[in-house]
C-alpha cells in the first residue's frame, strides 16, 4: 500500500500547491509513489462524513500532511486541528504557514478595524457584513503557533525541488534536509565593503552592466538597496543564484527569517545600524515583516505593556 498524502490550504493563495505541480516531469514519478487522499486544489472532497454528523468536519487519515496558509479564521483552526489529528507527519508549507506570510500584515490592525476597512469603508459601497465576524481570530497565526509541526518549509512559494525533496525524504525515511542559511550564502554579487549610508527606495534600479553576469554586479545592499538577503532564509535559487538576484532586484524576504524565532525587521535594522547606515531612511519599517508578521511580530500600534 502506498503512503497516503493529504494537502490542505488555509489562509492561502494556492501558490504553494501550484509550486508542487510546477515540479515538472519528476512530479509524475513522485505522484506514483503516494496515494493522494485529500487535495482540495486538485480534487473535490467533502469535509464531513454523513455517518459522523456529530463532528464539525472530518478528513481522511494520511502519512504525510501538507498545510499551506496561515490561520486567520475559526474555520482554519478547525481544519488545522483535524489535519493534525489525522496526519502522522505534518509539514507547514510556504511562508504563510510558517510565518504568517502576506496575510499576516493585517496584524497591524485589530480584526474589527480590518473588517471595517475591508468590508465597510465609508468611501465605497459598503459590502455585506459577515454574519459572524466573531469567527475571525484576533490575528493571523502561523501553523506552528496553533499545532506542533514536524517540518517547516518556508517560501512564497517554496521552490518545487525543496518540497519534493522533503516528501522524498519522508517516503524514504531519510532525514529531512536541513534548513537553508541566508540568501547571501549563494549570492554571487561582488563585495567591496561598506557602501551607501542611506537606503534607497525599492523603486530605484540597481547599477549593473546588463552584459555582465550577476557575479560582476556589486552587492545590492552595498548599493543602498534594501536587500533582505542577510536576514532571509535562502533556498529560492537552490544552490544557484537566488531568484530575485537573477532578476537584479533585491531580495524581498519571502522565505522569512533565517533562524526560527528570528525577527527580520530587528535583525536587518540592527545590522544596518551597526554598519553606520541610517535605518530611519527605510520607508515603512514594518514592511520588512511583510512575510513574517505572525508569532506576534506585527502588532496593532498603541499597545504598551
Amino acid at each position, binding site marked *: 500500500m502506498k503512503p497516503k498524502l493529504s494537502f490542505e490550504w488555509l489562509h492561502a493563495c494556492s501558490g504553494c500547491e501550484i509550486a508542487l505541480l510546477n515540479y515538472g516531469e519528476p512530479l509524475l514519478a513522485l505522484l506514483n509513489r503516494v496515494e493522494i487522499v485529500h487535495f482540495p486544489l486538485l480534487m473535490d472532497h467533502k469535509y464531513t462524513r454523513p455517518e459522523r454528523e456529530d463532528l464539525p468536519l472530518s478528513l481522511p487519515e494520511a502519512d504525510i500532511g501538507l498545510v499551506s496558509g496561515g490561520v486567520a479564521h475559526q474555520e482554519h483552526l478547525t481544519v488545522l486541528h483535524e489535519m493534525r489529528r489525522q496526519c502522522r507527519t505534518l509539514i507547514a508549507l510556504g511562508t504563510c504557514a510558517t510565518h504568517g506570510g502576506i496575510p499576516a500584515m493585517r496584524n497591524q490592525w485589530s480584526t474589527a478595524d480590518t473588517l471595517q476597512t475591508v468590508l465597510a469603508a465609508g468611501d465605497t459601497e459598503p459590502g455585506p457584513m459577515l454574519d459572524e465576524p466573531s469567527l475571525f481570530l484576533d490575528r493571523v497565526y502561523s501553523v506552528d503557533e496553533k499545532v506542533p509541526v514536524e517540518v517547516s518549509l518556508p517560501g512564497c512559494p517554496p521552490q518545487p525541488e525543496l518540497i519534493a525533496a522533503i516528501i522524498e525524504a519522508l517516503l524514504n525515511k531519510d532525514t529531512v534536509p536541513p534548513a537553508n*542559511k*541566508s540568501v*547571501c*550564502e*549563494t549570492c*554571487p554579487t561582488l*563585495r567591496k*565593503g*561598506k557602501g551607501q549610508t542611506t537606503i534607497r527606495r525599492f523603486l530605484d534600479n540597481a547599477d549593473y552592466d546588463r552584459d555582465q553576469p550577476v557575479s560582476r554586479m556589486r552587492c545590492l545592499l552595498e548599493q543602498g538597496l534594501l536587500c533582505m*538577503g*542577510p*536576514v532571509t532564509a*535562502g533556498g529560492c535559487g537552490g*544552490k544557484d543564484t537566488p531568484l530575485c538576484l537573477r532578476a537584479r532586484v533585491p531580495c524581498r524576504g519571502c522565505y522569512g527569517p*533565517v*533562524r526560527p524565532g*528570528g525577527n527580520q525587521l530587528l*535583525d*536587518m535594522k*540592527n*545590522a544596518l545600524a*551597526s*554598519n553606520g547606515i541610517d535605518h530611519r531612511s527605510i520607508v515603512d519599517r514594518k514592511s520588512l515583516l511583510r512575510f513574517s508578521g505572525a508569532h506576534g511580530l506585527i502588532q496593532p500600534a498603541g499597545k504598551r*505593556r
Partner: protein
Amino acid sequence: MSEDTMIGAVMVIGGGISGMQAALDIADSGFFVYLVEKTGAIGGAMPQYNKVFPTNDCSMCIIAPKLVECGRHANISIMTLSEVIDISGRAGDFHVRVSEQPRYVDINKCIACGQCSAQCPKSVDDSFNSYIAKRKAIFIKYPQAVPLKYQIDPAACLRLKDPDSCGICADICPPGAIDFDHQPQKHEIQVGAVVMALGFQTFDPGKAKVWGYGVYPNVITSLQFERYLAPNGPTDGVLARPSDGKPVKKIAFLQCIGSRDKNHCNNEYCSAVCCMYAIKEAVMVKEANPELDVSIFYIDMRTPGKEFDRYYERARSEYGVKFIRSRIHGVEPKGGKGDLRLHYSSVQGKQVEEIVDLVVLSVGLETPDSMVKLAEKIGIHMTPDRFASISAFMPVHTSKKGIFTCGAFNGPRDIPQSVIGGSAAAASAVALLTSVRNTRTRPIAPPAERDVRLQSPKIGVFICHCGTNIAGVIDVSEVAAFAATLPQVVHVERNLFTCAQDTQDLMIQQIKNLGLNRIVVAACTPRTHEPLFRKTLKSAGINEYLFEMANIRNQNAWVHSQDPEAATRKAKDLIRMAVVKVTSLTALKPLRIPITPSALIIGGGVTGMTAALNLAKQGYQIHLLEKTSQLGGNALHLFQTWNGEHVPRYLMGLQEEVNNTPNIEISYNTTVTAVTGHVGDFTTTIRSGTSRKRTIQHGVAIITTGAKRYIPEEYEYGKIPKVVASIEFDKLHMHNETRVANGKSFVFIQCVGSRNQERPYCSKSCCTHSIQSAIKLKKEVPSRQIYILYREIRTYGQRERIYSQARELGIIFINYELHGPPKISREDTGVLVEVWDHVLHRPLEIKADMVILASATLASPEAVELANLFKLPLNADGFFQEAHAKLRPVEFNVDGVFVAGLAHYPKPLEESISQALAAAAKAGRLLARKEIALEPNTALVDPVLCDGCGLCIDTCPYRAISLVEYLDEAGTPLKTVAIDQVLCKGCGICQGTCPKRGVTIAGFTYDQIEAQIDAALMDALPTEVTP
C-alpha cells in the same frame, strides 16, 4: 668573577610591597628567589592601610593577589620569622646566613582553622592594629596573611614561659600542629644577588612628650587612625573617641611628627608620604561623616606626585577639609573630658586656640635600628638620615656590588615609588645574573589538563564570607543551602576568605578529590580576583576557563547593606546566574605565539638609554629611537642631581656605553609613523629624517619620550633680559656670565606655569633645583642677597637637607599665594620684584639683578600621536596614564607597552632612572617567557549558522574579520567569515551585529547570556499588568 660560577638565585630581604614586587619580577625572569621576612607573614605595611591615595582603592584588596602570587610561586621560597645575620662573598656568589625564629606551629599541618586562637587565654596588644586592639598569644598577623599559618608569640605565650601551664592550643588543635619544642634555626644560602627591601617603621611620638601621645587617649597616630577607619579593623570602621567612645566632632591632623624635626628627634628629612596620607584619611573620614570638622596643620603641603595636587584640591573644595599653615608645637588637655587644646599663630599672625576631640599625629618614616646595624655589618653605606646611600644615577645599587636596594629603605617614599624600586632592583639583579638564567629554577609546569568535554558538569560553588564583608549582610548559610539545590552543583563550601592561600590549596584538593570540573566562586569581583582563581583551576588540572564568579560583595553585600533580605535574594540569583553560565562554558586554549626577543624604546634620553642598557644586558636586541640627532634628552640641560652629583659626566659615560653596546641599534631623527600587532609581535613603522620608512619587529615597547619645558608668558619673561628661566640661568651661571658674576641680588620665583588652573599639577623638581642654584650662588659670594618666592617648598624626602642648608646660609624664603603672585617691573638697570610678605604683613619690594623663573615641565606634544598609535590613554595633563597608579606604575592595559620617565609625569633624574629600570624589568619579564599566550575569549564563527552575509566585517574595529569562500561537498561555492584570532580583541561588536547568531565571543555567547538572563528572572513575575 667568571660568569659560569655565578648563582642563578636571588635573595630578597623584606616581604613588603617593594620586596614582593622584586621577588615576582625576578622569579618570573628565570631565577629562584628566597623571600626573607622577619614577621610571620609577608605583606609589609600595606595590609594595615584602609585605602590608598590617590585612587582610594581598598589597600588589602589590591595587594591580596600579589600576596597569593608570591605564596604560590614555584620559584619563590618565602622564609618567615627570618632575619639575615650576615652576607659574605661577592656579586654573583654571595653566602647569606639567615636565622629563623621558631613559629611553634608546624606550617605543614596548620589548617588555619583558628580554634587555637579562639581558645587561647592570653591577650596582648596587637601590633598589626597599631596597639588599639588585642590579639591572642597564638595568632595570625592578619586574616589574608600569606602564609596563612598561625604563630605563637613567645613573649606572650604562658606555656612557653612555664612548661607546666596552659597548652590549650596543643590540646585542641585538630591536626596537632602545635609544637612547643621548635628551636631557632640557622640557614646558609647561596645566591648571586641580594635585594634589600628592609622597609621602615613609623616614628614613635611617645618619645617626645609635647604631643601628649601615650598621655591623652584622644591623641593617636595616623596609623591608628587608619585602623579605626578600616572596615576590617577593630572597630569595624566606626570612629569614636578612644577616651569615652563618644562620636568625634572635630579632628586635627598634625603634620611633620617625627619629620623635618631636629628638636624632638633626629629626623631632619621630610617623610614624603604624610601629607598625602593625611589628606586621604581626612577625605575618608569626611566622606563617611560630612558634618565632621577636619583640619590639617602643616608647614608645606607636599603633594608633588601624579594627581596629588588634584586630590589635595578636591579635599579642600569638595570635601571641605581645612588646611591651616602652621606647625603645632604642643597639645594640651582642655577640661577633664578628653578634649584637647591646640595653640597656634595663624597666617595673619593672630594667636588662635582650637579645641578638638581627636588629634591625629601624622608620623614620619624611619629606618629601624636593627636594619641600620645589618647594613653596617654587611658594609653598606648609609646617609646621615639613616637610609641606604645611593647614587641618583644608580638608584637601586648599594655601595656593594651585587647588593641592590629598594623601597623605603632607600629613603622615605610612597607605594608606587616602592613598587618601581622593587622592579628596578629586579632589573638590575637580572641583568647581573643573565648568564645563569634558568639554572636554579624549577620548571613551572601545571599538571596535565583533565579533558572534561565528555563529562557531565560537576560544579563546585565556593562562597566567600570575606570576613564580615559579605557574611555580615547576606545570610550565607541560606545562600549555600540554595546553591546546593541548583542543577549540576555537587559541592558547596563556605570560606572565611576564599582568596586566602589555604583556601586555594583546599580548592585544589576538592577539585581533585570530588572530580569537580567547573567552579563558581561567589565573592568579590572578577576584575581583581579572576586571575587568581583561574590559576588555582590550572593547578588543579582543569581548564582555567571553566570558571565563573558571582560578585556578591562589591555588587551586592556592600551596595545593599541596608537591605539584607534583598541582598540575600540577589546573592542567590547571582549564584544561579553564575552556575548556569559555568555549566555551558567550554575549555579554552590560549593561542600561543612566539615573542620577538627585542624591544623598541622610543626616546633617547636618560630614561630610554637606561632601559636600553639594562635590557641589552639581559640579552635582548634593542631599537632605540631618538627624534633629535643626539642622545641625552632633557638631561643635556642638567648639571647636578639633588645631592650634587655631576650630570654631564654621567651622561657622557652613559652615551658612550649605549653607543658601544652591540645589541643596541640607535636611530636618530626618527619618529614612529605606524604601529600594528600586539604584545610579543609588534610591527612598527619608523621614518628617519628624510629617508624612507622602514619597519621594525619587536616584542615589547617602552615609551620614554620625555617632556618639554614651559616657556613662561608671565613675569615679563622675554621682555626683560634679566628675567630668565632656570635652565637658561644654569648655563649663564656655569659660564659665570656677567649678569650672574656681577649680580648681588637674585630672586627665584617658583611654580611658574605649574599648580595653576590650566596645569593643576606640581612639576616636582623645581623647588630642589632653585634651592641648589641659590646655595651655589650664596656660597660663591656670601654677601649676595638671595630670595626664593614660593608657594610651598617641596623638597620631599632627604632633599629637605638642602632646604635646611639654604636657610642656614641666609637665603630668604618668602611665601606667596596663587591669587597674589609677585609683580615684576624694570627699574634702572635691574628688576623690581614686588611681593606680599606674609610674615611681616606688608608688601615687600626687592631690587633684583636677576630673576629666575622655575618654569613648569609640560607633557610632550608628540605624546598624543604616540598614544593614538599604541592605543594608550593620556591623563588630563597630557602625560601617559599608567595601568594602575599604585601597583602597575610602568604598565598599560595594553600588554607589552611600558612607560617611564617624564613621559609619565615630571620627576627628578633618579626617579626617571628608577622607573626606566622598572620598565626594563617588566619588559624583560615578558621577553623571558619566550612565548605569549593570548586571551582566548575571542570571536568564534559557528559554521552551522554563519552564511557569509558579511555584515559584521566592517563593524570590526580591529579588521579581524574577512570573507572566505569555500566549496561544499557538492562543489557549490559558499561563503563564511573567518576571524584572525591574533587581531581579535574579543569586544563582540560582531556578535551584537550578526542577524543569525553566526559569531560569538567565547565565554559570552548568546546562549550563555540568555541563560544568565533566564536565571536572573526565574523568580520574576510575568510582566502582564494585572489589577
